[in-house]
């Protein structure tokens, strides 16, 4: 099947297996390696991407389902100049340890900020509840999201 979608701001038209998981399409076909696989069951959030500006776990989306839609990963935020302030905030809060969960955390934070530019701590916690950090640095991550310059 030929997939027509907007990936990181660019329109693409690509032949691929529509039943492939979106995470595999993004990593293998599009070489977007910020998308990490953790549990593969929608539980850990490390493969989170934006689908039409909403956070979704790309391991629970079929590639055929993105036809006609827009997908954004951390690489896309970088290209659009939206990553810098988030990255600075994560670094200054010390919110990155091993870094494996960080792309998913950033995407979930971005999805929250699209909907709610001034979230409370409770709203930040809820937005990040589907992102596990096994270094357990949650307080610093919440602090980082709270301090993102907008």
């Amino acid at each position: 099947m030929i997939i027509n979608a907007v990936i990181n701001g660019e329109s693409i038209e690509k032949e691929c297996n529509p039943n492939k998981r979106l995470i595999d399409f993004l990593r293998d076909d599009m070489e977007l390696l910020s998308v990490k696989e953790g549990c593969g069951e929608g539980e850990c959030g490390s493969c989170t991407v934006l689908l039409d500006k909403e956070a979704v776990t790309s391991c629970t989306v079929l590639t055929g389902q993105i036809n006609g839609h827009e997908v954004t990963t951390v690489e896309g935020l970088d290209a659009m100049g939206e990553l810098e302030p988030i990255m600075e905030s994560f670094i200054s809060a010390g919110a990155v340890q091993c870094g494996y969960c960080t792309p998913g955390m950033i995407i979930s934070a971005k999805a929250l900020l699209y909907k709610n530019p001034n979230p409370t701590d409770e709203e930040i916690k809820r937005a990040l509840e589907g992102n596990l950090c096994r270094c357990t640095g949650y307080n610093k991550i919440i602090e980082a999201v709270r301090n993102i310059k907008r």
Partner: protein
Amino acid sequence: MKSNAFYAPETVQELIEVLKLKKEGRDFYFVAGATDFAIHIKKHGIMDYTAIDLTHLDELKRIEAREGFVEIGAAATMARLEESDILRSHGNALAEAAGRVGSTQIRNRATIGGNIVNASQSADTVTASCALGATVVLLNSEGELRELPLEEFIIGIGHTQINSDEVLVKVRIPYGRKPEYSSFSKIGSRKSVAISKINCAAKIIFKDNCVAEATMYFGSIGPKAIKAAVMEKHCIGRAWDEKLLAELLELGSLQVDQAIPTRPSRYYKRIAVKGVISDVFNDIAQREVI
């Protein structure tokens, strides 16, 4: 049938055409949020299948007020249910339940239709919808619709009355007599992103400050949501006060004992049930306008 085929109908007519293919074919799966499906294919090592994607059918995503009921498209996501003003006023328990499912990412994809047809004994929106007296509407390959009560539709864990050429298209929540209050609560192994160990939903209609009608259901204490008939009857004619709550807590434990008399989890659940009953009771108490 060719493996790895993918159909994405955009209209009900196109959906009917695909249902005709499904009737003849094998290894067809309906996919919407795919939050259960992805786990299913991983667990069973399924490599080749035909997917029927329901996420491009706008008609199945709507939540609309109709005459006598709220009609919810089967592909409406948990996030949409949670934020729906119509549901908040005519089916609060369901909006609450949807807001407690999974994580933000899951709620953005998971649908009420998937939650119902997957027929897990822990499905939060099923317990809530049963308490609200929901019916389900199925569409078949001839384009015919059939409507039946949700409670009858679900037979047990993973089993429903759906035929091979049918798809769940709508869920209907009838309007209750006003003033009607409904609520939902659950307990899982952690605060969020948890599958219910026990859940509870209730709908109460008051008259002259006393309970005129009561509907209560529990999930995760049997193969499907269970109606707490004794508790419902106990509420009738009573004021919604501390005395009634204390009695309902004891009846809740008895309900667990009856539902799962031999399961090891009964010792935990006969206490945990009191927590969910208290949550629901107090939420309804706060909403009551006297």
